[in-house]
């Protein structure tokens, strides 16, 4: 009872703590924060202090002097640096929860379905020590499916593929539960790395993570164009041969080639999931197909590639980047009804 009263005073929030971006949905206020999961930490006199988080910190990524570290505390969908992650969550909550004097909020955080109990506990503890009153966890594919508007509680199979920054979650859902899920540690980051590796191997040019991400967003494609080289982009980096900064032009075809490996990993994951799906659910999925969510869904021609690889209709969800946080937010809004999908490590 008391907690319900206090709940009215605090802004309960849903957090999509992603490898690449963190999104925060505040109950009754929609998505209020969408920033990269990056923290810049300055060290002075042996003490570490947070210098910036989010967009500001991302601009520092790869451009920091010795006393500043720009860190991405999450890797592969889970917390890699516990303390920094905690600081980041704290900062984000502070940005959002401006009614500081009031009660601490209730928080729903999503976790990859393939994460271990230790990883989940780490996320829950981070959120708790960041000032949450109560922390609930929700599995990412479930949140993505709810956010995409799939009828997850009906007795019909739905398949969702959530391609995030660190992980790709493939799941089949029915009757409000996850029937099968598979999480592969391939995502946007892996694609960036593939691009960096490809350019280094073929052009002896070293580009940073931010540049690789920009290339992927602008001309990235899951399959090479039917004819010609497609769009081109200028990239800048350091020449490995003579060590001077260099600029060169790279084409869509080359990027599609470089992305072949992570893309095939995603296709494999989807195929494996389909292999493990019960025949009744498979029949439902044949009709309705697969729904793509997450930032990876925005990669050009990914739906086309998946459609041809699986032979199923593939649709991209509306606003795929925010699907997970919208689903998490819905679980928060309809807390009583959707409590079945929330878990707590305690």
């Amino acid at each position: 009872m008391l907690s319900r009263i206090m709940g009215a005073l605090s802004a309960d929030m849903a957090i999509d703590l992603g490898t690449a971006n963190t999104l925060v949905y505040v109950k009754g206020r929609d998505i209020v924060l969408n920033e990269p999961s990056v923290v810049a930490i300055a060290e002075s006199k042996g003490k570490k202090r947070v210098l910036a988080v989010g967009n500001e910190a991302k601009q520092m990524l790869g451009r920091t002097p010795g006393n500043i570290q720009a860190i991405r505390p999450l890797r592969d969908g889970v917390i890699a640096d516990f303390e920094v992650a905690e600081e980041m969550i704290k900062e984000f909550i502070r940005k959002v929860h401006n009614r500081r004097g009031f009660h601490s909020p209730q928080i729903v955080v999503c976790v990859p379905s393939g994460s271990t109990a230790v990883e989940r506990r780490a996320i829950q503890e981070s959120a708790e020590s960041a000032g949450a009153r109560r922390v609930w966890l929700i599995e990412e594919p479930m949140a993505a499916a709810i956010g995409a508007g799939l009828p997850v509680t009906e007795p019909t199979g739905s398949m969702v593929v959530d391609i995030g920054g660190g992980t790709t979650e493939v799941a089949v859902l029915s009757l409000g539960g996850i029937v099968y899920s598979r999480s592969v540690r391939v995502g946007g980051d892996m694609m960036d790395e593939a691009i960096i590796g490809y350019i280094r191997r073929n052009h002896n040019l070293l580009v940073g993570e931010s540049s690789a991400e920009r290339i992927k967003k602008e001309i990235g494609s899951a399959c090479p164009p039917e004819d010609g080289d497609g769009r081109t982009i200028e990239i800048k980096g350091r020449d490995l041969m003579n060590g001077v900064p260099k600029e060169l032009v790279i084409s869509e075809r080359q990027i599609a080639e470089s992305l072949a490996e992570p893309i095939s990993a995603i296709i494999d994951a989807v195929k494996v999931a389909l292999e493990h799906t019960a025949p009744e659910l498979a029949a439902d999925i044949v009709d309705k197909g697969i729904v793509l969510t997450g930032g990876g869904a925005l990669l050009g021609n990914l739906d086309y590639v998946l459609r041809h690889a699986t032979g199923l209709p593939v649709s991209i969800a509306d606003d795929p980047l925010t699907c997970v946080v919208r689903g998490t937010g819905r679980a928060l809004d309809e807390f009583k009804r959707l409590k079945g999908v929330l878990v707590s490590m305690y």
Partner: protein
Amino acid sequence: MVGVDRQSFRVIEGGGGSVAQDETVAEHVGAFLREARQTTGRSVAEVATSLRIRTKFVQSIEDGRYEDLPGQTYAVGFVRSYADYLGLDTEALITQFKTESRNAESHPDLAFPVPTTVGWFPTGKIVAICALLAVAVFAGWFFLQNEGAVDVAAVPAPPGFKPAVASVEKPANVSVAAAPAAPQVTAVASAATAQPEATEPAGQSPETPAVTAEVGEQPVQAPGPAADPQITEPMATEAAPEPVTEAAAPVVVAAVSAPAIPDPAPAGEVSEPPAPVETQPEPVTVAEAPPPPPAPPVAAPVVAADPPVATTTATQIAALPSIPEESSTAIVSGEGRTYGVINQEARVIIGAEADSWVQVLDEQQNVLLTRMLRAGDRYLVPDRRDLVMLTGNAGGLVISVDGDPVPKIGSDGAILHNVRLDVDLLKAGRAVIQ
């Protein structure tokens, strides 16, 4: 470049477009898609194979039968794929499609399957109703229990009265035991009590318990042998003067306990209807025996002021003598009561304009008066110089000396602990000692 006009859904050819025609007017998104498909010369089957969407779903989209599609999310996905496949402006078409298919919920109502509750434990509503019923039943029982109860004073009776009090405690019992005669006998006893007091307060006995004992015995003996009521009455009357002063209660108590002993039959002859009627008011108005100044405790007549039944009066009186109250007796005048009427020579009179609690003590801390003076009540203070007054509402008191009001001793609500009731000090307005 293809633009879509919302209202008429008119496709405006922007030039360079490979699909759309000039001035195509379509009813809905599906029809528009169909026309776009037909211009490219593709068949539905071709589209279905290419997009891996069931042919029937492609048909449904083109015919505008959106309710046949598997769900809003999927439908939007199909339209997006289709538009993309035909190279159309995807976002505009999707927006249009969403407004058209508004009736189909974009967010399905999520209702988790809940296992049916199987258990012996009743639901919350039933528990709540039971609790309410229990409370109601208890309240009713409690009310019935207390309805006929006499408010026996909480103060314990002196040792000598215990048995008597016990016998009167339940008036119902008494009346049953005493049969029809009981009320009359009691009434007679009351009369006996009242009359001597009214006429002759006279004798003053400092030894109350002793007197009590005597009185307690005498009436019992009296009616015992004398079943004849004519004897009972004089006996009682005789007995009454003997205990003299304040022994009102003992007499009554004795009288009440007495009827149990004699045969009720003769007592029935006693019935003197006028007797109770006449005598009842007497204890009410007429003051009881005044005490000596040292003030041994005596019955408080105020309680007797409204006796509902004879027996009840007896009970109350029986219970009251133990109150260590001032011997003050009250005269009920028009607007208030007057206490301490025995103090005829009183020079100081405390009057109450508002309800005020007042306690008057003498030098030995003997309590002469302690009570709530209601508005209009008065207290005649004994003419002594050593008296001290305590009050809970100094502003509500008007003190007069020899009939002349003296300055107020305090403001409304002021609590004073040490007001000297000395004539000179009161006149000088210096009676309050801090």
